[in-house]
């Protein structure tokens, strides 16, 4: 399945379009998506540190999705680097 990962904060610098699309097997876990994204960022956006993807959370519009969860069926997901509001 095609997964569109919307980028925020410092991770926006990973792709000027504001998102990254990856092909993932159906029912992939968030942990697997994280690993695939780390490889993608390593190859396509080397200035972004691997640690930043590690420290980021994934989320739908409704909730944070931790590593054991599966990627949403609609293939829409966001990656949230460490937050700094207020």
């Amino acid at each position, binding site marked *: 399945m095609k997964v569109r990962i*919307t980028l925020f904060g*410092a991770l926006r610098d990973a792709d000027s379009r504001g998102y990254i699309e990856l092909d993932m097997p159906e029912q992939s876990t968030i942990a697997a998506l994280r690993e695939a994204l780390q490889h993608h960022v390593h190859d396509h956006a080397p200035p972004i540190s691997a640690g930043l993807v590690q420290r980021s*959370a994934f989320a739908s519009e409704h909730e944070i999705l931790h590593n054991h969860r599966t990627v949403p069926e609609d293939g829409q997901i966001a990656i949230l680097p*460490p*937050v*700094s509001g*207020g």
Partner: protein
Amino acid sequence: MTDIYTAVVDISHGPLDPTAALDFVSDPRFGGIATFIGRVRQHNLGRAVTGVSYDLFEPLALRMFQDIGERARAEVGGPLKLYIAHAKGDLRIGDLAVVVAAATPHRDEAFRACRLAIEAVKHEAPIWKKEHYVDGDSAWSEGCSLCEEHREAERQAVKQHGDAHGHGH
């Protein structure tokens, strides 16, 4: 729930409005109102700042503000009105970044609810700040990880070092 108001305000359409926050939480049942107003300051970590830009994942941020409101209600264990609004876009020095107002029958619950809400907004909501400096450089602020493994690591670090939080914000 009509006792909790949440908003993300695009600063290009107008500033945050503390008067609207006070109007919203005002209620004949309540004798105490606590407010927190966060403004863009001139310096951070020794560097002169000319402005900041806020990026938000808006639908999730609004859900989280609502959840934070429910937690504040559980914390005070009684009637509460709460207003949470955060700015989005490009802000200058002195512009309002966040407004929280909490109203309850007495001051103690109002202070506690307001404190809980602003701390949660800063540490948990999907909001990112980019600072712009006098020399033309800019940088995303270091923040709090929302990833469960890293949150646990940060909690352990706080325990070991005994400070109130793992880093200075």
